[in-house]
């Protein structure tokens, strides 16, 4: 029997699409689906978490803080005098911001090498010694405190927690079906990017409220630009700020300028800090 084995064109089993184009389409499709679902979930989360009472926040914080002995979220302060002074200032600003009566602000002060200040659940604010040392006057310190108090006033800590939690649960349940942790990572980056947009919005809102507080208490916002100078000195290049939770320092400075244009300062002299406070630069009282 005569058989033939001719050469056949390869088109039958080899696909003609380019793999990079295929990859781009896939990433775009996954990205769009992820972002749309996250936006919907975030809207629901933000709406619902604001109904959580402040007292629940406080008890949540107490639970987390004492959960692991020796590893508290906010450790005991090393310098109670400074903490008391900061608390007095904070109470003043809380009143200026018309914080609701049931929302109590507690300031914590700890020693640390890297600048940090944050507001967390239950009205707890932390300021560390590195930041305090860089404040040359009360107005700069006021901007920091007012900013953190503004976060508490707008309930950003619990809302941010609700946002993050909702997205984590959504990703775990949706992507638990996926075989690989790598596709989880890709969707995770989209989730992170979406959350960062909201986080930066919160920071802008807190900045705005803080500026208004400073204007009310001192009649001018002189400390704000000094604070952003300090931040600009210590943080990295703008590329590192791409994934930062805060807006670019340049845009924060611009916001201050806009605020000053709309709210002319009454008088510009900064208020000195108490002489016994551990700071590096200071103005003589």
């Amino acid at each position, binding site marked *: 029997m005569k058989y033939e084995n001719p050469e056949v064109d390869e088109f039958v089993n080899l696909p003609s699409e380019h793999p990079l184009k295929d*990859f781009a389409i896939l990433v775009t499709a996954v990205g769009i689906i992820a972002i749309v679902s996250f936006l919907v979930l975030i809207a629901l989360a933000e709406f619902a978490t604001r109904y959580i009472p402040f007292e629940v926040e406080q008890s949540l914080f107490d639970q987390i803080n004492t959960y692991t002995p020796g590893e508290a979220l906010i450790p005991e302060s090393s310098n109670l005098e400074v903490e008391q002074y900061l608390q007095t200032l904070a109470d003043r600003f809380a009143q200026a911001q018309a914080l609701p009566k049931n929302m109590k602000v507690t300031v914590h002060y700890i020693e640390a090498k890297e600048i940090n200040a944050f507001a967390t659940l239950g009205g707890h604010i932390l300021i560390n010694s590195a930041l305090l040392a860089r404040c040359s006057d009360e107005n700069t310190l006021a901007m920091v405190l007012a900013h953190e108090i503004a976060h508490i006033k707008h309930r950003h800590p619990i809302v941010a927690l609700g946002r993050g939690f909702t997205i984590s649960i959504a990703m775990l349940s949706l992507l638990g079906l996926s075989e690989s942790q790598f596709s989880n990572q*890709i969707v995770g980056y989209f989730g992170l990017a979406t959350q960062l947009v909201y986080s930066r919005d919160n920071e802008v809102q807190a900045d705005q409220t803080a500026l208004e507080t400073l204007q009310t208490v001192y009649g001018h916002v002189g400390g704000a630009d000094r604070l952003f100078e300090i931040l600009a000195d210590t943080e990295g290049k703008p590329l590192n700020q791409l994934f930062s939770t805060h807006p670019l320092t340049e845009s924060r400075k611009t916001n201050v300028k806009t605020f000053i244009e709309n709210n002319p300062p009454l008088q510009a002299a900064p208020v000195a800090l108490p002489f016994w406070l551990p700071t590096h630069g200071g103005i003589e009282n």
Partner: protein
Amino acid sequence: MQDLLFFLLLISVGYVSGSVIERRHFASIREREAELRHILTFSAKTPPPEDCHRESAFVTGNVVISVDYFKHITATLRNLIGGRVIAYETLMDRARREAILRMKFEARAKGVTRIFNVKLETSSISKGRANQIGSVEVLAYGTGLI
């Protein structure tokens, strides 16, 4: 941020090296297919009556090809969305043709000109964890008539 950059770096390396190796492999496959075109393979179980009294030999060829990182990521995204996994189609085509070619090489060494009852078996090789980058193994085997 560094995680993302590292991830992109791995994907690029996977894509570049994977596509270079794949192109070379296909060129080599075409060349050898032309060389071994005279050895015929049949999926029929029994040879025709006139060939039944010849000597026979069992011939096999197998190949293990690894998935590169880029193919792996594309496949996992496909697993979320659905549809043809194009990256793996070229991989499987290469593996199948290579396995059959190696079977033909063994056949030539044994003096076989026709291979009947050719079968292909595919399995995936991974270390057991579901998320590992794996390899695919194709085994081609048949009865060769000398």
